[in-house]
């Protein structure tokens, strides 16, 4: 009786909300594929875009020289490459599928113009830092161009992922961020308002509408009502599990590669001690969090790169061990009479605050008293970049190339030049990064990166937590959507709607 009453309450709530939504929303077109997003893209110009949504949509609008396979190895996309010397790379464009959406052919001049524009300090492109090693670009013919580097960089091809924009558009000063013109599988149609972006598939004219629905509950209700056809990620795990039980809805998940971690300030008197960092790592019960909070939609991490990455390492996970954690704290001079106090910063996203509260409780069980401070994204990220924290949590999203280790853990990579936010400085780590960056042999590089990840797990500048799964929720009529490990939207090129 109690259970049935509960069901009635749930159904009444859904019905009420659905009716209310129905009153608010106009009927959408029934031919387009409608994709609900939590946030809208900030820029449709690939030279400027940095946020995940913009990058994912720009992949649909623009072609790029290099892409990645399932093991995150760089593979030819618009061009194959030859390494003529340690500082000289030649890119040869493919013959087919090289047409901008205005009908002009994409050639080496467009590629050169795109990269020259990124390298122009006046453009202020966020990709400048990665690509500034390019000393000169030389166009050989319409299909071939050479890149000359300042210094050897064996991973260089993996950085050639900026979407190619037309040279004419750059010269004419076209506002590509709102009027994109690329050569990807989708052409731009309209962006009538910030929360609605319309594209068209080049191959068959299928319309695609991205619609922003900020609230996860509303996003789900719109999907149930048929106002949107697809949504991907950004749902509370419980809501995802609930959707699995709905008729007419399909849920697909796959292991993800976005790495969540706890970061320490290494210059802090407490978190600078290795025993304290180990105690924190040993106090966390990842299994319980993944089982009960993520409902299985995550997997434990022991290193930044997932094990399937070509440079990934299969390292042992740090399991919860409260007696050892307490012993390490006691060795560091902390105990019941003199407990360790830490301030844990996180963003104000409700799910992140929820995770922080759970970690606070788990650390308290080891005798570590944690104060959780949540801030809006701008303030939080500003504090993290400035090194103004003791403990924080963040995720690395869309990591493909192992040069992330130099960016995040090299002693010289302090912000703003890099992302060594905790001011980690370790001679052995630096040595391994240098050796891996200089090696030209992929096997040797992979071996060095594995050693490096083992070293990082020993030194714990960050505590590896988990890789959150990717998932897509679609109405039954949608087929052909294949999830990518990094959560990109590339599968929209094949998806069909009955």
């Amino acid at each position: 009786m109690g259970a049935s009453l509960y069901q009635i309450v749930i159904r009444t709530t859904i019905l009420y909300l659905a009716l209310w939504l129905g009153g608010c929303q106009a009927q959408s077109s029934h031919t387009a594929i409608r994709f609900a997003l939590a946030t809208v893209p900030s820029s449709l110009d690939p030279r400027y875009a940095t946020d995940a949504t913009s990058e994912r949509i720009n992949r649909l609008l623009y072609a790029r020289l290099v892409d990645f396979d399932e093991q995150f190895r760089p593979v030819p996309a618009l061009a194959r490459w030859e390494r003529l010397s340690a500082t000289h790379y030649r890119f040869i464009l493919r013959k087919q599928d090289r047409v901008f959406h205005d009908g002009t052919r994409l050639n080496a001049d467009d590629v050169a113009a795109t990269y020259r524009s990124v390298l122009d300090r006046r453009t202020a492109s966020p990709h400048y830092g990665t690509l500034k090693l390019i000393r000169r670009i030389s166009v050989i013919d319409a299909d071939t161009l050479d890149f000359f580097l300042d210094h050897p960089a064996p991973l260089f091809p993996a950085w050639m992922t900026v979407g190619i924009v037309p040279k004419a558009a750059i010269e004419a000063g076209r506002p590509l961020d709102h009027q994109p013109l690329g050569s990807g599988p989708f052409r731009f149609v309209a962006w009538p308002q910030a929360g609605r972006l319309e594209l068209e598939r080049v191959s068959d004219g299928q319309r695609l509408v991205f619609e922003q629905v900020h609230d996860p509950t509303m996003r789900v209700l719109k999907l149930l009502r048929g106002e949107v056809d697809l949504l991907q990620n950004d749902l509370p795990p419980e809501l995802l599990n609930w959707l699995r039980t709905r008729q007419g809805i399909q849920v697909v998940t796959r292991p993800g590669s976005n790495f969540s971690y706890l970061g320490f300030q290494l210059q802090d008197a407490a978190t600078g001690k290795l025993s304290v960092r180990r105690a924190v790592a040993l106090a966390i019960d990842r299994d319980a969090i993944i089982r009960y909070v993520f409902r299985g939609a995550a997997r434990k991490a022991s290193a930044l790169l997932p094990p399937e990455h070509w440079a990934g390492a299969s390292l042992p996970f740090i399991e919860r061990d409260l007696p050892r954690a307490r012993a390490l704290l006691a060795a560091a001079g902390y105990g019941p009479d003199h407990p360790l106090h830490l301030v844990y910063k996180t963003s104000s996203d409700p799910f992140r605050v929820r995770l922080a509260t759970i970690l606070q409780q788990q650390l308290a069980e080891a005798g570590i008293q944690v104060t959780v401070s949540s801030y809006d994204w701008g303030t939080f990220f500003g504090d993290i970049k400035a090194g103004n924290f003791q403990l924080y949590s963040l995720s690395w999203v869309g990591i493909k190339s192992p040069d992330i280790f130099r960016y995040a853990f090299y002693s010289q990579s302090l912000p703003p030049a890099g992302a060594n936010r905790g001011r980690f400085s370790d001679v052995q780590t630096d040595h391994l990064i240098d050796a891996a960056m200089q090696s030209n042999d992929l096997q040797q590089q992979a071996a060095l990166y594995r050693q490096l990840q083992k070293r990082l797990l020993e030194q714990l500048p960050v505590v590896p937590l988990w890789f959150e799964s990717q998932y897509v929720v679609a109405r039954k009529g949608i087929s052909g959507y294949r999830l990518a490990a990094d959560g990109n939207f590339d599968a929209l090129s094949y998806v069909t709607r009955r």
Partner: protein
Amino acid sequence: MVRRLAILVLLAWTLVALGGRWLPLHPDRMALPHILEAPDSAHWMGADDLGRPVLDRLLVGAGVSFRVSVLVVSLSLWFGVLIGSLAAWYGGRAERLLVLVMDVFMAFPGILLAIALAGLLGPGIDNLVFALTLVGWVGYARLARAQVLSVRQREHVQAAQALGTPSWRIIWRHLLPLISAPLVVEATFGVAAVVIAESGLSFLGLGVQPPDASWGSMIRDGVRYMLVAPHLVLAPGIALMLVVLSVNLLGDQLRDWLDVRSGLREQGRER
């Protein structure tokens, strides 16, 4: 019947608020296996998104809303009556200035001002009480001023003045007892308004801070799980509704009881 129910609800609210500390409550005890559990025999109102018992949090939240409403109404009443009656008694420029200030406060939506103040001062229960008091005193001051103006010409007041009774004594002994009835009724409705305002500000994250519970913050946290676990929103929502409804019902009763004219009407009907 309805009146009895209302009294029962308010009695329960007061008892839980005053005696909550002696109850074996564990509002912050997390149990991950119980996350979003529906109401059952072990958890009468289910568990929230961190596996904490909703009933325990609801009872602790009752204490918060009770304390805030009593504090805010008492402080507002005290300052409002003091300022309003002194202004009406002494008159002059100070009174005109006060009327102007009150008009400005009344013209501005109270809850918006409270949101702005709570945002400016930072989240927290003390700042919330301060913000709501700063907004709340105006109604009492306005009422007290109007009442004092209407009774200050009465003979017994003039007699007290003629006998050289000090002003404070006249206000305390001869005016306040006369104006207290409408102020008490206003304060009753004020309690309901403050309960709603506290929940509203806590819903916006400007009131009680996690992990402490308040009805507003419970509703805010529950909204994300409305489809999966509606009890997270329904429990504090219904509690809030019952308390506000009961306070308003009893306020109405109190007003009728204290209103001399309505008493005469009743008698008239009987004849």
